[in-house]
């Protein structure tokens, strides 16, 4: 699965340093050291590590929300260009179901938004696409007319996944996407992501503090510690015995 010629995304020596404070009194806070990673189509890379390890920062770089201070971030071999977003090439699914959707918009409008922005389909076509997408993520198409407040956490997270997939993006970031869900709903969402990836062949980063969920959904796992990746290994390794001390400590938490 990783033997595809061109990786969908590539980090080449990416480092991020935050600047804090006013212009005359800047302090620099390093968040990510120097990261080299490639992710192929149809592959999920798990990114685990504790709070402040830089995993969320790296995810934001991958979405073009943060520009790397050093190194290069490439999508399909080209440096990131914000215009690529309007093509619907990238998507994100985040942690909190209650904030995943704009509470003032009908769910169908939220799910259709990436298509609306891309602007290549008329209203009717968008509506049909939303209906089939909702069905695909296990929601009744009638939910498109509802507001997020009427939905449960799991249903909202499914909506967010429908929105993320509506443009058939080449790359999706899942940042703690199942952390706020009940265990049973978590399993449904994890299985859903797996199935959809098999169908759509998107590349994905699955960011989580939870090694158990991460190793279930990922093909490879990168362990981050203090801004650096200390181990990258196939997910299977994390069912057995990872190499790095810190990975082992993480591993111990789920035994």
């Amino acid at each position: 699965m990783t033997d595809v010629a061109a990786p969908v995304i590539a980090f080449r020596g990416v480092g991020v340093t935050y600047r804090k404070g006013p212009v005359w009194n800047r302090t620099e806070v390093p968040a990510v050291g120097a990261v080299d990673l490639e992710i192929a189509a149809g592959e999920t890379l798990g990114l685990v590590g504790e709070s402040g390890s830089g995993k969320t920062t790296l995810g934001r770089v991958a979405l073009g929300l943060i520009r790397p201070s050093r190194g290069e971030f490439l999508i399909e071999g080209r440096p990131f260009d914000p215009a690529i977003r309007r093509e619907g090439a990238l998507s994100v699914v985040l942690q909190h179901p209650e904030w995943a959707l704009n509470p003032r918009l009908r769910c169908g409008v939220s799910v259709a938004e990436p298509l609306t922005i891309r602007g290549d389909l008329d209203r009717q076509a968008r509506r049909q696409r939303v209906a089939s997408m909702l069905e695909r993520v296990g929601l009744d198409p009638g939910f498109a007319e509802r507001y997020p407040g009427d939905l449960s956490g799991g249903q909202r997270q499914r909506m967010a996944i429908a929105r993320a997939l509506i443009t058939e993006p080449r790359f999706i970031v899942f940042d703690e996407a199942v952390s706020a869900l009940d265990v049973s709903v978590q399993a449904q969402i994890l299985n859903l992501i797996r199935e959809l990836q098999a169908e759509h062949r998107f590349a994905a980063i699955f960011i989580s503090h939870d090694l158990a969920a991460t190793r279930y959904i990922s093909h490879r796992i990168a362990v981050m510690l203090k801004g650096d990746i200390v181990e990258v290994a196939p997910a299977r390794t994390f069912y057995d015995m990872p190499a790095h001390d810190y990975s082992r400590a993480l591993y111990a938490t789920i035994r």
Partner: protein
Amino acid sequence: MIALASARLGRFFRRDSLGLLGAVLLLVLLILGIFGDLLPLGDPNAIGAGPRLGAPSLAFPLGTDDLGRSYLPRVVEGIGVTFLLSAIAVIITAVIGTLLGMAAGYLHGATDHLIARIADILFAFPALLFGLLAAAVIGPGSIAAIVVISTATIPLFIRVVRSVTLSVAEREFVVAAVVSGASTWRVMLVHLLPNILGAAIIQLTYALSVSMIIESALSFLGLGVQPPAASLGSLLRLGSVYLTIAPWLVLAPGLVLAAAIMSINLLGDAIRDALDPLRGRSLK
């Protein structure tokens, strides 16, 4: 949709009788202010219609003023003028304050700094001092009053909208919209504005009551509406001269002003409570 909205409104007021009181009172005052000159109350500007400084009687329910004008139609006119000036000023405040507050909260950086500093400076500037200045430059009158009221109420409006915008902008649906390529305008209009509207409306009610106080204060000082037009403030100013011999001249506009401000605040509190997720959890 309308049925749903009215049903929600009905529930809202059943739970909150003070809010209902405020809404009804405000409605009565508004109707009086807007349609007052259609009512058979007499001519507010007819000099010598009755005795000078006459006490309330059947013919003149609120008495007469120093020129023998019937006071009831003058108070009613005052309600209309005060409401109108405050409303215009508050609408200006709401539009400018929402735009600037949203821009400051969402765009960060230099824009935020600039808007925040302007708001701070305006905030630090006493409204009445500014009123004197405006009256000197533009000349006293309605325009000056509107300018002063808006400048006095905008800073707080900006701050409130900015802080709400900051918290909404972190929400995940905003990040998702940006990632799918939404323009800054789209984010602000589709995602931010509808979600800060609630807070803005609450702030609007408070700004309205503050406006009425400022309007009255300006007119009281003679910097607001000019005679023969009457506002609650200018009536208070006139009445205060005769406080000892004709107290009703202060009492009537004073009570009306107090009622108006109270009703607006009650309504504002009710809206705030209705939007507050923690409402209804009673700790006994």
